[in-house]
């Protein structure tokens, strides 16, 4: 009985995406167009897999924060040169400028 169950699960695994495959497609889906078959497979997987639905939601949250992070860091000048670093850089520029 357990042998039959294993064979059945193996057969289903061939038809259905694994969570590993589904999460890879989710990561790609925002950037490349999935084929109709892959898109359908992903939708079917998401219907039955709660973990992957959570993965998808969390990916969206991380994406939006990443995009926001880039712009916030650029706008706020989060990191600045120290006075020592500024002096070093100014010396390098000056030396280069004074080269004959």
């Amino acid at each position, binding site marked *: 009985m357990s042998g039959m169950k294993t064979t059945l699960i193996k057969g289903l*695994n061939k038809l259905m995406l694994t969570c590993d495959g589904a999460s890879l497609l989710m990561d790609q889906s925002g950037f490349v167009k999935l084929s109709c078959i892959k898109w359908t497979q992903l939708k079917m997987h998401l219907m039955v897999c709660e973990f992957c639905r959570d993965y998808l939601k*969390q990916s969206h949250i991380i994406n939006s924060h990443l995009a926001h992070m880039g712009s916030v860091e650029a706008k706020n000048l*989060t990191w600045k040169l120290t006075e020592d670093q500024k002096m070093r*850089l100014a010396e390098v520029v000056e030396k280069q400028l004074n080269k004959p």
Partner: protein
Amino acid sequence: MELTPENWVENHGDFLFNFAYSRVRYRQVAEDLVQECFLSALKSRQHFRGESSERTWLTAILKRKVIDFYRKQTTKSDSSEDSFSSPFIKEGPFQGRWLRERSPKPWSPTADEHLNQEEFMGVLKVCLDHLPENWRAIFVLRFIEEMESDEICKELGCSASNLWIIIHRTRLKLRECVEKGWLK
């Protein structure tokens, strides 16, 4: 528009350093990249046509330097491949499914309620800093620089399939790290 190299450090130093640091996450490396940027800019200043601002021109040179740095990082052999531990079952009839103890857990709704949440952003930054360098390089180019995947492959000399595997593994690692930090 004329270039004023004698004022570059004062006028653009912090901006360029912030640009470099937010991408490479090491103060010394960021300083070196800014220095290389200034030196390259000085060498090629006769090519400056004044069509863009001085800062835009310097930033474009710095961006090139950052990509060169990433290229060197990704060609270095490192242990990121070995250190990746998959959160999926490796063999048996349930191969490829989430390992129960490492599967995604529902996050608090507050994580996506406020985009500005400092705590979440802080956790995300720490997790980004802990990624293997070559993985972070690809991730930054894709998600912060918003470069197309084929452009990244061209720059870094990797295949598209390899790029997606790295992005996928990086995401898995990042998600798990954020979850540990966020739910703590």
